[in-house]
């Protein structure tokens, strides 16, 4: 790939115009990187799509577990030095790094996914691509409640972080909106900084079994790779599961258990990444927070498999209410 990997090929800042002629996109993943079958992969899809469409040059780098801010910063600076512009940072962990590097490279356009912290990662050359995970989760919460026969549904989060809490809050709100008396169980597999909760299907299975034994019959797995354990438990017990981030019904890795996945809360990081690259290419870069909510099509519920066709009208109904502002979905507990 990279032909000019030698150091010292830093283009003098200021010699490019707003829209560079040949776009070299640098993308820095969060821990997990391309191939995580989840969040990072979604970003990768957006990048691939942009690349396929217009033959841009790309460079992908990936975070290491336990690294410091300085390493993230170094990653972004290295990309900037090598002439990559725009540069996309995936994950809120880049918030500090993006802010600093963007300030020192005013001619480079940056995007950060999942974070907008005024004073830290805002700036004239930063686009903050954030999502209304709570809204998407609200809809699958409605689906769970409507599909539940026991009036008892479950939420399994991978790691207890504010981001995943957003999923939980939205889900619970949706379930309660659809069935006011419903019980919503909730469990996080690990606590930060132990991030193995996103990678431990065995734990996911145990937690899901626990919720099923307590009466739940639909469980929403916002737990990354641990989700496969949740679906496995659902399949063994004849219960239902809900996926997250991408349309998990269609993931080859989950082909064995896909018949229990009634829907997934899709978070379109790919869309955001693609949009961003396109905007830079077209010279239409816009700084500031761009919220990918339900209205903007940034979050969505999946219909693959046809398991929720029967309740689609109700779901669409809620969707309209949210997009119109009639229902305000909470984002924090």
């Amino acid at each position, binding site marked *: 790939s990279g032909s000019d990997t030698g150091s010292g090929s830093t283009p003098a800042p200021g010699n490019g115009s707003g829209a560079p002629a040949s776009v070299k996109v640098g993308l820095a993943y969060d821990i*997990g990187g391309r*191939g*995580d079958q989840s969040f990072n992969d979604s970003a990768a899809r957006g990048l691939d799509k942009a690349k396929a469409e217009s033959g841009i040059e790309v460079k992908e780098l990936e975070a290491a577990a336990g690294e410091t801010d300085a390493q993230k910063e170094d990653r972004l600076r290295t990309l900037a030095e090598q002439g990559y512009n725009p540069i996309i940072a995936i994950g809120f962990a880049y918030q500090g790094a993006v802010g600093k590097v963007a300030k020192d490279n005013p001619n480079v356009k940056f995007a950060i996914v999942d974070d907008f912290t005024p004073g830290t990662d805002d700036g004239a050359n930063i686009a903050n691509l954030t999502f209304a995970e709570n809204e998407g989760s609200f809809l699958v919460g409605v689906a769970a409640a409507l599909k539940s026969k026991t009036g008892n549904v479950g939420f399994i989060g991978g790691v207890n972080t504010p981001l995943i809490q957003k999923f939980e809050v939205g889900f619970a709100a949706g379930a309660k909106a659809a069935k006011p008396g419903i019980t919503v169980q909730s469990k*996080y597999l690990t606590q930060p900084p132990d991030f193995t909760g996103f990678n*431990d299907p065995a734990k996911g299975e*145990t937690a899901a079994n626990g919720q099923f034994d307590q009466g739940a019959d639909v469980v929403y797995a916002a737990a990354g790779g641990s989700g496969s354990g949740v679906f496995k438990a659902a399949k063994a017990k004849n219960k239902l599961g809900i996926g997250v981030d991408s349309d998990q019904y269609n993931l080859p890795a989950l082909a064995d258990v896909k018949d229990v996945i009634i829907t997934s809360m899709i978070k379109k990081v790919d869309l955001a990444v693609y949009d961003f690259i396109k905007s830079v290419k077209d010279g239409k870069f816009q700084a500031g927070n761009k919220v990918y909510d339900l209205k903007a099509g940034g979050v969505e519920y999946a219909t693959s498999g046809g398991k929720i066709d029967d309740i689609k009208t109700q779901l669409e109904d809620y969707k309209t209410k949210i997009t119109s502002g009639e229902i305000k979905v909470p984002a924090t507990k």
Partner: protein
Amino acid sequence: MSAGGLSAGVEVAPAGAKRRLSPMIYLYLAVAALAVVSLVRVLTGANDLTSSGTVAAALTAAVPIALAGLGGLWSERAGVVNIGLEGMMVLGTWGAGFAGYQWGPWVGVLAGVALGAVGGLIHAVATVTFGVDHIISGVAITLVAPGLTLFLAKLYFAKAPGGGQKQSPPVADVQKVSIPGLSSLLGDLEQKHWFLVSDVAGLLRGLTTGLSLLTLLAVLLLVGTAYVLWKTPFGLRLRSCGEAPHAAESLGVNVIKYKYSAIIASGAFAGLGGAILAVSSGQFRDGQTGGRGYIGLASMIFGNWRPGGLAAGAGLFGYTDAMQLRGEESVHALLLLLGLALLVLAFIQLRAKRFAVASVAVVLGAAFILWFATTDKAPPELVTAAPYVVTLLVLSLAAQRLRVPKYVGQIFRRGEG
């Protein structure tokens, strides 16, 4: 430094004063413990404390830990500390993923065992042949294994259908067996929530329903280890390498060979633990072992370098971990259980005139009961710590009479006796 560690003047078990408890006493103790748990269940209504689901989940959770612990046992009984169990487990998960998706779960298990054994072999070469400090070699292996498996995953799984850079394509699970008829009968009993009866039913049902063949295999290996190490010439020789290798050498025992076999077996067991984890989770995932190797090591020390003890340690850990994962309600009940157990312990210690321990136990016990009484649920963040807290409490308050293999952690050199 060697992991034989300091005895710090703490009393070790006096040799010969073996007060062997008879099997009946163990049975009484188990029934008494179950009765207390049952009482707490009835009082709190936390039926999940002894439900078949909890028991089954505890068993599943305990198996990889116990196998890692068995790996530690084999190695340490032959005098070599194996802090690389975690790394060997990681190798096992990768092996199971790699072979498992192509040739089925059993081949996957074999591959996991083989890769774990390779990890053991490296440890053996470093510690036995080159006389490297056991801890160093173990840490190096634990360091390299995740990097290596990730490297290999990128190479082999990224393009495979359903695979990724950090995960293998799906692996089918092995068969599960139940005893026909028994399950539903016990299930009915369990649902009655009677004192003690339902608990026993839940326990039995959890142990006999949907039992994975791999779990059975693990149980067999546990029993087999006890047999091989304590009842066969091979085991005697192997253990002699951990107690008095120079004596063994002087009797013509090829110490190096036995140490090699033990460490390779150790790696194989850890690898099997990893493989079972991968196969039962349906795939290899980067980081999936999550420190189970270390817990296995801890359970082996907990179990005083004996298979039965390590099974108890792994079981305790698996039980509390399963409980906390399955729901917060039973962890809240656990507070009461812990409180009561501590009070019982205080009473026992008081009779033995160990006033310091007794008073600590009373204070802790009262604190737990107070905590239980004044809250509706335990904070979810803290619930995750339940298995660790319980293990630590049990270790601190139970009489610790560790009997470490005498030569463990030391570097054996031929002909220096």
